[in-house]
C-alpha cells in the first residue's frame, strides 16, 4: 500500500500501536490507479475450471477477447491465450468460441 500523506493525514509511516502498516493509509483512502493489472485483487484462485485454448485451432477471431469481463484473454499474432493470474473461470470464452478451440478443464487436473 502506498503512502500518500498530506499534512493533516495520519502520520506517514510512523508507527501506530505496534508500529504496523495499518497506519500507512493513503490520503482520504484514495487508491492509486493500477498499471496493467490490479495486483491488490488477484482472482486466479476463483477458478473451478480452467479454460484451455488449443492455440493451433484458434482462428484469432477475437470473439472471446471481446467478451471476457476480466480482460483475461491475451492476444498474440495468430491466436489468443488466457491470463490465469486473474481468470475467474466463468467459461464465457469457451461458450462463445465459434470453432470450439477452448475447453473447460477441472482446475485440479493441473499441478500448478
Amino acid at each position, binding site marked *: 500500500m502506498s503512502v500518500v500523506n*498530506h*499534512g*493533516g493525514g495520519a502520520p506517514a509511516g510512523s508507527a501506530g500501536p505496534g508500529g504496523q502498516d495499518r497506519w500507512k493509509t493513503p490520503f*482520504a*483512502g*484514495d487508491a492509486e*490507479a493500477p498499471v496493467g493489472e490490479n495486483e491488490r485483487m488477484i482472482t486466479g484462485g476463483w477458478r473451478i475450471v480452467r479454460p484451455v485454448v488449443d492455440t493451433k485451432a484458434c482462428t484469432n477471431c477475437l470473439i472471446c477477447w471481446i467478451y471476457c469481463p476480466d480482460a483475461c484473454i491475451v492476444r498474440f499474432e495468430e491466436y489468443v491465450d488466457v491470463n490465469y493470474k486473474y481468470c475467474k473461470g466463468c467459461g464465457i470464452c469457451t461458450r462463445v468460441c465459434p470453432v470450439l478451440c477452448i475447453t473447460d478443464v477441472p482446475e485440479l487436473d493441473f499441478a500448478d
Partner: protein
Amino acid sequence: MGKKALLTGVVAVAHAVKMADVDVIASYPIRPYTGVMSELARMIADGELDAEMIRAEGEHSQLSIAYGASAAGARTFVGSSGVGVTYAYEVYSPISGARLPVQMMIADRTLDPPGDFGSEHTDALCCRDQGWLMGWAETPQEALDMCLVYYRAGEDPQVSLPQYACQDGYFVSHITGEVAIPDPAQVREFLPPFRPVRVLDPAKPIAVGPQIEPSMGPPLQYQRYLAMQESRRVLTEAYEEFAGIFGRRYAPLVEAFLADDAEVLLVTSGAHTATARNVVQKLRGLGEKIGLLKLRSIRPFPDRELAAACDGAKVVGVLDNDAAFGISGGGGVLYTEVCTALQGGGLGDRELLGFVAGLGGEVISREEFYWMAQVMLDRARRGPVAASGKRESGGDAGLMARENWKKTFWLPFDMEAGEGAA
C-alpha cells in the same frame, strides 16, 4: 483600497465569493439563504464574476455537484437553510471524507415544525459532527470575512476540510450593516488560488472514495480527526494574517467580552450575541462581575480556549438557539459541549447552566438576557456547588439539594414560571 457599503449578510457573502474567484456554484432556493444565490446570479449576468452556476434540483444535488466540482479542482460554493440543510445530509460526510474544501453558507432556519422560517441554529448543528469546520458570523462584516478565512483554512493542505459558514437567518442575512468590502488585491494576497491536494485528472489517474477493508477504517477516520484538530492552529494563523492584511482582528475561536475578572460568564454564538453583549455591558455598569464569551468556532470546538477563559468564573451559562430533544442535561447542543469542555477544570466548583432561547426565530429579548444574567448572578452569590465527591463523602443534605438545583431552562417558559432561583 476597499470601500464601505451597507450590505445584508447574504450580499456580503456574495462579495466574498466573488473576490474568492469561486469557480462552481450550485444553487437551490430556500429562504432565507437564497438571496446569496440571486446576488451571485446577478454578478454572473453582469459579468462581475466568471463561474459556472448550476441550478440544482435540490440541496442533495447542490452538495453532489460541489463534491464532483471540488474533486475536479474547482473552488466551490453552495448554501442552504433549514430543512434544505438536512435534505443534503447524505453528502456531507463524503465531502469531508474525500477531504474536499467545499464551502457551504448556512443562513439558519427552523426545522419543521414549526413551519415558520425563523432562524434557529438547529439546522446547522444537526450537521456538526460531519467533519466540516463550523462557525457563526454575528454581522454581515463577519460573514464576509468568515467566508474568506474559511476558504483559506479549509483549503490549507494541513486541513483539507469543507466548511459550514453560518449566519442567523433574517437577523444577519437580511438586515443591512456597514461592511468594509476589501480590495481584491488584499483578498488575492490573503487567499491564494485553490491548489487541491489531488484532482480528477486523466493525466494522473486515481480512485477517490474506494471501498475499504475494515482495518483501513480507524486510520482513515483518524486522518479526519487529526485534520480537524490541526484546523485550530490553521484557523488561528489565518485570522492572524487576516488582521495584518485587512486590519480587522478577530479572536479566532472564542471572543471574550468583559470576561477577565468575571464571576459569571455567558457563552453564546451568532447574532444574538449582540443583544447579550448589550445586556452584559449594562450590568457591568451596575457593578456586576459579568462577562461574555462568543464562540466563533463550533467545529473545531475550542475547549481549551473556553476552559482557560472560564477559569475563575463561578457560574457559566450557555445560550442555545437550538432544539435538542432528550439531550443530556436537558439544555441544547452547546450546553453539553461546554460541560464537556469544562469538566477538566474543577467542574464541582463551578455551576454550569443552560438556556434554550429564541426558538422558531423568536427574538431573544433584552429582558430574557437580563433574566438569564439574574439567574447566574443569583447562583454566584450563593457560592460554589461542592464537588460531587464531597457530597458523597460528606452526606450533606444541603449540598445534595444544591446538586439537584435546576440547571437548564427553556425561555420564556421558565422565566415566566418564576424558575431560576436555587
